């Protein structure tokens, strides 16, 4: 039982202050997760909002079993998959334009590194890319990744190993 248990109890009783606490706690993580799946930042923000709306719609039937964060990631993953099926692939040049406002590093080297990694990530299968995003970018533990993807720990480790190998090979080639 952690702090989320009490927070969710308060939320289920309709305490609006606890809604605010909950959203602020997880909004940034979910938003960043969505941006890794969909480079258009506005869509990523819409998906993030939808994640929380879906969670709250089903809150009365939600039974606390472990980390709520993992459940949010599961909703986000499903939504991102659905959105991507509907949209056409965005060209690499447009990613740069979309991310311009929030770019932290604007040196030529930084841009090249970013594009290199992005190209390498694009070359991975969806399953391997997902593990990389959750492990390196969302900084989740392997057991948490297993929870979200509904796979066992050995498979998580295998996919991570495979993903790292393929990324290294890809980056060397590029």
């Amino acid at each position, binding site marked *: 039982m952690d702090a989320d248990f009490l927070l969710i109890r308060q939320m289920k009783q309709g305490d609006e202050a606890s809604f605010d606490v909950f*959203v602020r706690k997880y909004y940034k993580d979910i*938003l960043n997760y969505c941006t890794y799946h969909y480079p258009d930042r506005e869509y990523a923000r819409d998906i993030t909002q939808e994640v*929380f*709306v879906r969670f709250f719609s089903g809150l*009365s039937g939600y039974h606390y079993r472990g980390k709520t964060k993992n459940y949010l990631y599961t909703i986000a993953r499903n939504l991102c998959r659905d959105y991507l099926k509907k949209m056409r692939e965005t060209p690499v040049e447009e990613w740069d334009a979309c991310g311009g406002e929030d770019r932290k590093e604007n040196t030529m080297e930084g841009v090249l590194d*970013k594009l290199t990694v992005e190209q390498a990530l694009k070359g991975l299968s969806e399953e391997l890319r997902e593990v990389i995003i959750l492990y390196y970018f969302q900084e989740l533990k392997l057991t948490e990744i297993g929870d979200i993807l509904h796979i066992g720990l050995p498979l998580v480790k295998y996919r991570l190993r495979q993903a790292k190998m393929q*990324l290294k090979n890809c980056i060397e080639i590029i």
Partner: protein
Amino acid sequence: MSLEKQLRDYKKIREISPRENEILETVRKSGEAFFASEQDKVLSYHEFLWLQLKVVRKRWWVLQLILLFVLGGVLLAAQEDKYIQRSMGVAATLFVILIIPEFWKNRSCRALEVEAVSFYSLRQIYAARMMLFGIADTFLLTLFCGSVSFSLGVAFKELLVQFLFPLCVTACICFGTLCSRHILQEAVAVGLCILWSGVWLLIILNEHIYTNITLPVWAFLWGLALVSLFAALYRVLAGCNKYWEVSLDGIEI
């Protein structure tokens, strides 16, 4: 540069910060989604039972408890008097009569149609009341029979014949009246129960009849009463849609 470093640097570049207005908008929409789903949600069975428990007037259970206390006191005072023991049947009838008001409540308040259009059907409301009264009365009666048997040494056979059998028959009359084709008032049910009580008194006070009824006969009669009670309960639940104040085509009866 190692892969991990490259990925960490990439993460720093790609990371975005949420805008305050987006967070507030998300909180607002999340709240709306939650309250909208709560409005559409039907109560779970446990919540419904709990609500019915809060609605049922507890005075009847208090009166039943007082009745059992008084009966226990009378039995304690007149331990050897067999006629006092045999009069337990009168108290049993009164015990059951005390549940009549709650089961007739929706008729006496003319609330049948209102209850029928609620999320939970009339059948479920009756079932909930039966369950609540069943649980409470079983508990009270178990407590009473246990204490009387233990402290006063009254044999279970005596309790079965003098108390539980008339109680069962009275309950049959009650629920039989409730599920009758004709809409009968509470007073009719109470009147029939009192009539039965009178018949029962005549039987037990008549030594000639009473002593000739052996234990197997009592057990058979008790079993018959129990089967009739369950049949009456089933008919109440099955025939709920027939208990309208007006007929289904809108023409008042």
